[in-house]
């Protein structure tokens, strides 16, 4: 097996190893793919609570009065109207409209007490930091901005933990304080895609109602030093209701059922947000940002391949790169596939020609040389508000 000695380690690395985590190289980090079985960790999350170490995600902060205006010039959604307790999903695109990354933006205050922040994919962290720093001088010149603006990467000094599942909020109901002495931070009252500062044992933490599993839940950003204490407390509380620590394997199946795109699979620099089905995260009106004009053209282009969902017959799992066929002609390619525990069948996301995208279209997926019948289904596959 590959040496994992050169990989980055999260503050929870020793916990993972001590608890049977199978460590793999994920974007240069040594991360647990599973502790028990992917399926058990999957069901723990769907039915109770899964606790995920996501410290490998990149965490950036932006300081300076012009932070919001600068971010507004590089992401596909408006940042200037983001409230200091709001989180927004958006994309960073290049000049050609290709996706450099999909990110979460955290609203800040102009005085910097709450800095604007961005969470990026582990695989893109260095690329995005470099790219943003490249964009900065030109933007400052263009917009006649003289105020200092700095971009900080706090990934290695902090940790990030996702607590996901229908019992996540109840498990954490009295876990964080509003300030060092006051009552519990009201997570139940926190709206989806909002965040707040809370306290754990006197240390400030950021808690957001966000996630990547299709379940309700929160994500916590804390200092590296207190990560293990927070993690231990949450895993213990989760165990009381049937929850458990869960690895990247379960996380991938969960996000796939929820049709959430993954960079390197559904998203890349060769894909634009419109064809990825992310038009909701592209705001073209009355604003300018890198790639905007190209995206405006893509937004009316009906000829490009589009992201779809497939139910596949049989038991074989379609993998990234499997050809998708219609009447024996290749019309696209799978980007992610898994065996869905909820639907008890293989599912996949793929990009196909627009003529093959309609729900109900009968297609086939070539899995290692054998064709398997498939049907286009609506995305997401799994919606917790709906009976699946």
């Amino acid at each position, binding site marked *: *097996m590959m040496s994992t000695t050169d990989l980055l380690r999260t503050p929870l690395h020793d916990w993972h190893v001590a608890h049977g985590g199978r460590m793999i190289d994920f974007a240069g980090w040594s991360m647990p*793919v*599973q502790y028990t*079985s*992917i*399926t058990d960790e999957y069901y723990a999350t769907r039915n109770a609570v899964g606790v995920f170490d996501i410290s490998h995600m990149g965490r950036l902060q932006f300081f300076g009065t012009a932070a919001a205006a600068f971010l507004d010039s590089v992401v596909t959604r408006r940042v200037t109207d983001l409230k200091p307790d709001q989180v927004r999903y958006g994309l960073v695109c290049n000049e050609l409209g290709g996706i450099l990354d999909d990110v979460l933006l955290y609203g800040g205050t102009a005085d910097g007490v709450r800095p604007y922040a961005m969470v990026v994919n582990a695989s893109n962290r260095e690329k995005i930091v470099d790219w943003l720093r490249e964009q900065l001088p030109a933007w400052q010149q263009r917009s006649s901005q003289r105020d200092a603006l700095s971009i900080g990467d706090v990934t290695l000094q902090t940790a990030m933990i996702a607590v996901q599942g229908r019992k996540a909020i109840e498990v954490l109901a009295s876990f964080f304080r509003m300030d060092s002495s006051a009552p519990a931070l009201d997570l139940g009252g926190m709206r989806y895609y909002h965040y707040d500062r809370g306290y754990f044992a006197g240390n400030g933490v950021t808690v957001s109602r966000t996630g990547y599993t299709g379940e309700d839940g929160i994500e916590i950003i804390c200092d590296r030093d207190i990560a293990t204490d927070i993690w231990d407390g949450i895993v213990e509380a989760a165990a009381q209701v049937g929850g458990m620590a869960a690895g990247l*394997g379960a996380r991938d*199946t969960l996000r796939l059922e929820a049709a959430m795109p993954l960079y390197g699979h559904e998203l890349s620099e060769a894909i634009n947000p419109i064809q990825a089905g992310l038009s909701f995260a592209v705001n073209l009106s009355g604003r300018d940002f890198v790639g905007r004009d190209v995206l405006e053209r893509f937004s009316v282009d009906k000829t490009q391949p589009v992201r779809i969902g497939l139910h596949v017959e*049989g*038991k*074989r*799992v379609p*993998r990234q790169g499997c050809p998708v066929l219609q009447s024996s002609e290749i019309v696209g390619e799978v980007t992610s596939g*898994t*065996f869905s525990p909820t639907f008890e069948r*293989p599912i996949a996301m793929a990009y196909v020609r627009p003529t093959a995208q309609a729900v109900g279209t009968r297609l086939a997926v070539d899995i*290692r040389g054998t064709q398997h019948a498939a049907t286009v289904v609506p995305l997401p596959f799994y919606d917790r508000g709906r009976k699946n």
Partner: protein
Amino acid sequence: MNPDKLLFAKTHEWVAVVSEGGQKIATVGLTSFAVEALTDLVFIELPKIGRQVSAEESFCEVESVKAVSDVYAPVAGEVIAVNESLPDNLEILSRDPYGDGWIARIKIGDEAGLKNLMDHAAYQKQCEEQ
């Protein structure tokens, strides 16, 4: 079956060789180490009965949630039986890898492949080094 009485391939198959009416038959399965490493199995494609296989040829595929793995024939010959109960009961592979979890029986055509197999102690050593 007691793994100490089996032979093992580098690629994590086990083999039990018996003589039946002057003919040597190899029963082949996956080791507990391999099954444990795969986890979350969803599919097995058994070889066809009657298929001629050569040593170290992929003759079966097992698929887990995360990946597809080949199972290699440890010895050359003809596939004369496959474990038909596996496809619908993949948990047998982990419950009893050296017994009910057998995959196929091969009528040995050429015994040369057997020389490349190791005993249980050597195989365990290999696993510890991985």
